């Protein structure tokens, strides 16, 4: 890839041949800048006056709109909703403020552009470009200066200084890295455990009451949370992000997976509601097929077959929670999930 090779593949002549000079016989030569064509405003003072009035009108309209903005702010109540065709029911304050502000701004712009286009000179003129790279003598001067500066510093000669300086500069940012340690706690086994444990009742998410097996009918989808998790708890969001549960009742003979049947109670199966893809809550249930679909990325799981993935980007089945019934006839968990819920991670295994 010598420079000679390069220049051979380049087009022959760049700019110089494209100058404004007419080349005798070259039909494609640059004829040079065309003569300026005057606009109507350049030759007819009445047209220019009309433009002037148009610009002034636009600026005046802007002033009116600003007054309108202030008036709207004062007049319209913040909570008034009105029907405006074709926008439907809108906040009148937002509508009025936005329109008046929009008109006030737009008219300034339109006036300025109209002024520039019709009344300011539109004579095009050329300006020369200059090469950006420095001429050789400047480059030589800079290199010489740099060499002198470097030599005066002794940077190249006194290696001990150089090396220790690099060492110090390389190490000092470590302090900043160390300071980031307390950004968060360490993962430990936190992603492996949820609030569920043996004996915790399943609480209906909607009614906040413990669930009985007879509350669940074939074809219904019910969401549950562990007993003791209240909405006003400080860590509610973090706990529910792992513990959210969905329950469906499937006829026991329709359950294809053996372990699923074992972990169910009279065909009631409990699965983590958190998608194993990237953690969206699954919320769409197809009664006939017992498929559930995550509305975020459309991973589809078959709840009658161990919640295995049948479509979409999820990588593994939803974890199942083993459930039973306590002495009082309420559904309860028989332990925590035996695998981490939600998206997969490196330590999941």
């Amino acid at each position: 890839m010598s420079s000679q090779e390069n220049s051979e593949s380049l087009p022959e002549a760049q700019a110089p041949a494209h100058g404004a000079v007419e080349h005798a016989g070259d039909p494609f030569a640059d004829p040079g800048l065309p003569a300026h064509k005057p606009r109507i405003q350049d030759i007819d003072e009445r047209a220019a006056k009309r433009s002037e009035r148009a610009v002034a009108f636009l600026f005046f309209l802007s002033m009116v709109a600003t007054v309108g903005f202030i008036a709207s702010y004062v007049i319209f109540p913040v909570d008034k909703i009105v029907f405006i065709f074709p926008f439907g029911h809108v906040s009148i304050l937002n509508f009025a403020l936005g329109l008046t502000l929009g008109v006030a701004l737009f008219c300034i712009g339109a006036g300025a552009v109209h002024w520039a286009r019709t009344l300011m000179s539109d004579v095009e003129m050329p300006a020369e470009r200059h090469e950006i790279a420095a001429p050789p003598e400047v480059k030589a001067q800079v290199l010489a200066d740099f060499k002198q500066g470097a030599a005066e510093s002794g940077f190249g000669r006194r290696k001990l200084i150089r090396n220790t300086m690099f060492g110090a500069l390389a190490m000092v940012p470590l302090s900043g890295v160390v300071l980031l340690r307390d950004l968060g706690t360490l993962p430990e086994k936190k992603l492996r455990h949820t609030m569920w444990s043996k004996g915790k009742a399943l609480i209906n998410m909607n009614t906040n009451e413990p669930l009985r097996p007879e509350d669940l009918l074939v074809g219904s989808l019910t969401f549950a949370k562990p007993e003791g998790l209240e909405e006003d708890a400080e860590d509610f969001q973090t706990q529910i992000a792992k513990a959210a549960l969905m329950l469906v009742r499937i006829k026991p003979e329709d359950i294809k997976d053996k372990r699923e049947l074992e972990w169910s109670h009279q065909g009631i199966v409990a699965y983590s509601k958190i998608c194993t893809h990237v953690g969206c809550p699954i919320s769409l249930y197809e009664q006939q097929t017992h498929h559930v679909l995550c509305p975020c990325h459309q991973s589809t799981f078959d709840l009658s077959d161990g919640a295995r993935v049948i479509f979409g980007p999820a990588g593994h089945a939803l974890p199942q929670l083993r459930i039973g019934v306590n002495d009082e006839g309420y559904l309860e968990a028989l332990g925590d999930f035996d695998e981490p819920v939600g998206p997969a991670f490196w330590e999941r295994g």
Partner: protein
Amino acid sequence: MSTTTDARREAPAGERIADWADGRLGIYSLAKANMRKIFPDHWSFMLGEICMYSFIIIILTGVYLTLFFHPSMNEVVYDGSYVPLQGMHMSEAFNSTMHISFDVRGGLLIRQIHHWAALVFLAGMFVHMMRVFFTGAFRKPREVNWLFGFLLFVLGMFTGFTGYSLPDDLLSGTGVRFMEGAILSVPVVGTYLSFFLFGGEFPGGDFVARFYSVHILLLPGIMLGLMVAHLILVFYHKHTQFAGPGRTNKNVVGMPLLPVYMAKAGGFFFLVFGVIAVIAAIASINPIWAIGPYRPDQVSTGAQPDWYMGFSEGLIRVMPGWEINLWGHTLVLGVFIPLIIFPSVLAAIAVYPFIESWVTGDKREHHIADRPRNAPTRTAFGVAWITWYMVLLIGGGNDLWATHFHLSINVITWFVRIAFFVAPVLAFIATKRICLGLQRRDAEKVLHGRESGIIKRLPHGEFIEIHEPLDAGARYKLTAHEQYKPAEIGPEVDENGVARKVSRTQKLRAKLSKGYYGEGNQIPKPTAEEYEEITSGHGHH
């Protein structure tokens, strides 16, 4: 002595202030170079201005919003004026966003201007980038500015993401959860990264405050710096222009900054602001009151990120759920691969200028914007990239395509999986053919003139259409572009029969160069001889 004081007294106030400033800031020298600086005119040159102005609008409205927004995840019970949400648990962030929307007069308007301007900003940058790409305006000396612009686009995406996550509503929270899932998929360190980002387990109580400082300080600070650098370079390099009579690589033809571009560009700021204000008045955006506060166990259907994040959404949706479990560890390829392709899609367009300059070996400055047809391979690559991006956007909205057009979501997903690989290739081939066709048309026009639409009957009965020859200006315009010759690597053996060492990169470069400029990959420009021959009499075609 007395004459100088007299002169000072006589000078008008404006001049005296300017003198004062010049003595301290040197403004006269600055103004000498820039006040009458020439800018060329073309509609596509305003795309960058849209970006700059929407960025300014975002900063102005953003500052206003910080006066009312509380970046806190403390749980509160809503008792504001929006009845349907009263009594609900929500974070203070959501609560204060509700306050801005319903109780601060004009707060909703500013919120909506802020969000709309962000969408316009990103869309403007995308289109501006494409303009620069397709006209080859990224070539030397502007490669650095191309990278600055690209960084602005990428940072803009993340500023947007952190911004729309701040209200802590159900939709954006779902997006943050998606981000957490994506981070968890990173091998070895993913779990730790997630815990450090969220201050522990998701969602925790920290991320809104952290996103806030990133959204209002860190990213916009960097972006402001980049934008200033971008503008300084635009001034320094001077603008590109299209070839035309009198417009060469050595000059720039247009009108001066003062007054024409001061008025036009300054006025354009108000036009952009005005249009966005009207949009914010009539079109609701991110109505968090209808979406509700975030709960990790709730979601709505049709969840979509803002448009500029849509292609990453497409990647994550269409990727098969591959997971490898080995030695007690999980490699979450189904999420990690999209996470890697996401920056790669962006990087593909960012590095293109350097690939092209390597292939051409061209070290000269370029100030004439190419017409896209005259760089068929580049144009084809750009269209292929856009096609790729659009295919992923379709994937990101596969549920909406399914519901709006009554299609099967499985079919759309499979379509995107295949189109991800096939569509860019088809787009490349089609675009290149179209470009070559347009080049042929230009050559035809130069040689035979413009079709006048006048049909003439010759004495012997033949009908012909009269072609009007182009004037010198039009001829120049259509032939001003340069054409490279393909790079040669030379024979494998030298004249003495000794094998030359030809490195693999050299071979690759020669091959690429042939693909760019070889026979059939560009249409040779008409030559003066061809022109003479056709115009010298006997031809009337």
